[in-house]
């Protein structure tokens, strides 16, 4: 039922900085699950502990475990984890700028047999026709939006079963955000890829997700079905920018500050 379950995860950077403090989440197979939280809450760290990329940053899982298809994976190398079907699209796109668009896609499909390449590439071009026109271009010259498309396209090349998306809307114009989220939804329903979505843009994320978690200071402070989160007054106030009475939030309100503090505690 759950494709992924993270249990009581504790992560320490550089042997001293405790960033995740006993975090647990479950991702249901076939769902889109949103992971929300403010800057520095530990969202990216959570994804990196699932994909195994933590090790390259001198981060370490000191407690807890990650189960994928009921197998513990938190001791595996990232290349092994990708082969199991988990693919992380990292924050900030991270495309290979001095490779062409097509070569970037080739890297995305690195773990797949070579004969799949042209078919997978056509699928990516179907989702992102703009990449097709630019496929011989150096990826460094793509616009920010096109680079985000390439980053997601690269992930599709690997045919993952669980896709970890880290802030796909970062730095994109509202119209493009809508387009990207539409595509994420399609990838989920048409390709049957389970998605764990990290976002700052809480509303957009909760609109396509079925379930959501809210992470503050390395702990989950709230979770539930997406609709119930959207209607939760605290979420509305702190993540959707709507006051409890429907007005814009005001920082002069001391009571508000206390509530906020309780959240961050």
């Amino acid at each position: 039922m759950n494709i992924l379950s993270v249990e009581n995860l504790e992560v320490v950077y550089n042997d001293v900085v405790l960033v995740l403090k006993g975090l647990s989440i479950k991702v249901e197979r076939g769902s889109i699950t949103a992971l929300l939280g403010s800057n520095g809450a530990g969202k990216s760290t959570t994804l990196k502990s699932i994909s195994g990329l933590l090790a390259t940053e001198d981060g370490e899982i000191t407690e807890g475990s990650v189960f994928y298809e009921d197998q513990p994976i938190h001791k595996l190398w990232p290349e092994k984890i990708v082969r199991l079907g988990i693919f992380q699209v990292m924050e900030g796109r991270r495309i290979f700028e001095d490779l062409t668009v097509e070569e970037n896609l080739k890297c995305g499909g690195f773990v797949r047999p070579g004969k799949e390449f042209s078919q997978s590439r056509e699928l990516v071009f179907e989702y992102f026709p703009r990449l097709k026109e630019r496929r011989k271009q150096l990826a460094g010259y793509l616009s920010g939006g096109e680079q985000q498309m390439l980053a997601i396209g690269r992930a599709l090349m690997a045919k993952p079963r669980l896709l970890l998306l880290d802030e796909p809307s970062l730095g994109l114009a509202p119209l493009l955000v809508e387009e990207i989220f539409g595509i994420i939804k399609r990838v989920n329903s048409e390709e049957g890829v389970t998605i764990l979505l990290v976002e700052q843009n809480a509303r957009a994320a909760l609109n396509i997700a079925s379930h959501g978690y809210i992470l503050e200071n390395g702990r989950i402070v709230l979770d539930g079905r997406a609709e119930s989160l959207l209607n939760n007054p605290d979420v509305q106030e702190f993540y959707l920018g709507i006051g409890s009475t429907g007005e814009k939030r005001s920082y002069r309100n001391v009571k508000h500050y206390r509530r906020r503090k309780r959240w961050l505690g």
Partner: protein
Amino acid sequence: MEYYLHLVLNGLVIGSIYSLVALGFVIIYKATKVVNFAQGELVMFGAYICFALTVQMGLPFLVSFFMTLIFSVILGLCLERVILRPMIGEPIISVIMVTIGLSTVLKAAIQLFWGTQVRVYPQVLPSEPIWILGLPVAPVYIAAFCLSVVLFVIFSLFFKYSTMGIAMRATAFDQQAAQSMGIGVKNIFAMSWCIAAVVSSIGGIILGNINGITPQLGHLGLKVFPAVILGGLDSLLGAALGGLIIGVLENLSDGLAQQFFGLAGFREVAAYFILVIILMIKPYGLFGTPEIERV
């Protein structure tokens, strides 16, 4: 006139060996962004192993040639496992410092086993010269040149078209992102060091056949710096041409300095003069990739 032609031809041959060694250097740089200060010692390693197999163990040259290549691959794998893997995720500059240490260790080990005197290879190719443009050229020179060209073509195609080659370029650009798509950085490191060790060994063996070998061979690594910087650190074609240009210019200017000023030994510094002049004109080298900047 004949004198100059001769200088140029000799320069081309020495240059093609520089190119080979530069190729190894560029491959490591391309895949891992590490500047390898032990490149010259890899040359030395190959030269001495092949010497030991041919002369000390009496194996036929071709057999020991291929065995040397196998040993180079093993050396590359060991270096990755013992020295480089623990450095994954550390700053590049630390890895570069490690290669400096490595060069000292390799050189010392070789002197320990084989001493410091000149060692000579047995004659492999016939000494009967072949005439090119009315000049006698030793067959070993021609073989050296052809071998270098062939290796270049192979590796250029490898980087341009093979999945592994593309993955190596990707790793060079962004290690962590490459890792996130299942590209094993360990394997890429190992592979680039193996290739570098193999081509350097071939360079060393060729040199052994031309000049004989001494532990001074490691200084070749320093000659390679002008060649690769000239060519642009990350360009294979640049390394090839950079090596040839340095070889020819060095030989010519040495010849001229001797003829007109009676100066000997200009060869040793010529390469750096040339380098400074070219870098003043083209700071990214002749073929290097400038950083992508979108405007």
